[in-house]
């Protein structure tokens, strides 16, 4: 199979994100619309229903380095959220604690990461964790 280079891969992901993904509970886009290297992205996750996260809007930053998609993106929450894979000091996501990042392959995508983090929020162990006040930031 042809190996899609970083920039063309990110253009595809950008176009997919602009059209809107899934049911709208996760979204992402470029932080700066003329960032020709497409390094810095914003993401949002709407907290899953019937959990402590319900109706919360979580903002986060995504960084796609030079080796994306061979290497996973780095992710940092801007909104405070209490889940085991997010550092409570600065909101960075611990790659080792999130399977989609720990077992990253080129077949994964930014959409995939956001959807998986949202699923984690709804897991049996995370759905009832006490949360910081809604809207607070790191």
């Amino acid at each position, binding site marked *: 199979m*042809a190996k899609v280079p970083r920039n063309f891969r990110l*253009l595809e992901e950008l176009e997919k994100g602009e059209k809107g993904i899934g049911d709208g509970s996760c979204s992402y886009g470029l932080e700066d619309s003329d960032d020709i290297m497409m390094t810095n992205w914003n993401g949002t996750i709407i907290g899953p229903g019937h959990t402590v996260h319900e109706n919360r809007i979580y903002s986060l930053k995504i960084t796609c380095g030079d080796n994306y998609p061979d290497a996973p993106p780095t992710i940092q929450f801007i909104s405070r959220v209490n889940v085991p894979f997010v550092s409570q000091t600065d909101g960075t996501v611990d790659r080792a604690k999130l399977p989609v990042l720990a077992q990253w392959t080129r077949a994964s995508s930014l959409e995939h990461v956001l959807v998986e983090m949202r699923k984690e929020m709804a897991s049996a162990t995370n759905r009832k964790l006490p949360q910081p006040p809604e809207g607070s930031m790191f």
Partner: protein
Amino acid sequence: MALPKRIIKETERLVADPAPGITAVPHDDNLRYFDVTIQGPDGSPFQQGIFKLELFLPEEYPMAPPKVRFLTKIYHPNIDKLGRICLDILKDKWSPALQIRTVLLSVQALLSAPNPDDPLATDVAKHYKENEKDAQRVSREWTQLYASE
């Protein structure tokens, strides 16, 4: 992972007999991915500029068109802020009879003949339609700022 014969042939010819003002060099680790330069055509606001682009031949090539993007910033109504190009042969007018060479010549020709009626960068197109002279002045400025060596 064998490279189709057609791609090998095209690459050989691009290197041995390059089109005037155009270079295309495949990456060592991905022979479907090319670093491209295009010289701004004489008589256009992009004259004397050297523009960097990248080109990728998807798995479906030549049944699907190459993907091409400017890496150098350019003020042109059919090229957007991310360097994406609005050109019919890169979309619905693609034909497998076209080649990397013809695609890059068409991109070079687009620099001589902007088409503000089919814009990708709407603000630039508006500028070109309302005051072509002033828009060309900005295109020249950007060429000097971003596309000179």
